[in-house]
């Protein structure tokens, strides 16, 4: 268990990136398959 935790700590950046990329793909596929696709990605601060 401790070796697993050590390994996870050593590869933290890679694990975080994999997790993020997985959910980004889910979000992209979700918006692509939506019947009413969302508009372009707007940023709230873009108009300041």
């Amino acid at each position: 268990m401790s070796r697993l935790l050590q390994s996870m700590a050593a590869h933290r950046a890679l694990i975080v990136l994999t997790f993020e990329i997985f959910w980004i793909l889910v979000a992209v596929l979700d918006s692509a398959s939506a019947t009413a696709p969302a508009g372009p990605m707007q940023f709230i601060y873009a108009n300041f």
Partner: protein
Amino acid sequence: MTWRFEFYGSLQFWVALMVVAVLVRAGGASARVKGVLLLASSTALLLAIPRFGLLDLVLVWAITGSSFLAARALTGPSSDAARRRSIAIAGGGLVLAALAFFKYRYVQDLFSFGSGVGPAASDYLFLLGISYFSFKALHVVIETHRRSITTVAALDYFNYITFFPSFISGPISRYPQFVEQLGPVPPGTLESDLSRGGQRIVHGLFKKLVLAKLVFPFTLMAIGGSLDAVGRRGIALGLYASALYFYFDFAAYSDLAIGAARLLGMTLPENFDNPFLRRNIRELWTHWHMSLTSWLVDYVYWPVVRRLRQVALFRPRPVLLSTAAMTVTFIACGLWHGEALNFILWGACHGVAISLVTVYQRRKRTVRSPALQRYFQSRTGAVIGAVGTFHFFAAALVLFLFDLSQLRILARALLR
């Protein structure tokens, strides 16, 4: 296919970024070639933004050109203080006038000649990125007047103002740090730039496409139309969600801008550093939109402090002086977000809160109780501080999100 696409939100943008990155890195052995390539790329990419046309580009170049002429004159050998001051006021004033005109509708109303019918929202003129490039231009004019910037070259300056990754929403870089990176791309940086830039882009996309999207349905912006129907719990949840949404959305943009710039071999300043983990509102603001807060500190807070030191009432009272200067600074911050009274109240609320924290920090140092001192240094103290700070930030958002008439509806809903 038309040359129109959203920055960071379209496949075309990412393809264009890759092409620019390859070109800049391939031509990066010469500073001049790199500068020309960057300026051409920024120009072409800005023209791709759907709300940015040729006229907008001409306006940006006109503002950039006039502030450049002022900065160039200020770097000259003249030591005539009055003349230098006039040039700085003219150059800075022009930038401020453009900012006020394009940002505030009531300024544009001054120039309309009363057709008798109220103007529609589409009648108002809008210039994308006006705040951010105005702040950068003002920084250069002020610093050349102070002689802390001694040379300004046209190609460098136009690149600084129109650098496309940060053009729309920052981060607000500083001229000397930006320009020293316009030299040849250092050899052996490709791998680290690709790795770090790529990671920042993934972090940014995750915040925008996943986290911001997750919390948005719970925000008060999403339920804005029916405030009186929202109960207390809905309002509280809406405020927390709005605070998180603002963070995810804007930190995402900053990550994407920093990551994209890194692919071009440029490092932009950080803009967010876990602001909601900070133990008081003062620390939160030094870790939230950091490039703007440091700009406000340099160009609003310290000039106000210097002015107030000359006033007899403030000179012997440093706490009062600091409180007044901080409140003015955050009112300016509120005014930057919008011209309505609620933004001024929001800014004043934060300015006063930061001042109270400063007073509290001073008092803390005089506390003799060992138990209390242990608490101040403890992790528990930090957690309680962070939770309290987040609650304050979220609660103050009511002043940011709603105008006075909406605030009345909200107050009715809370008192019911």
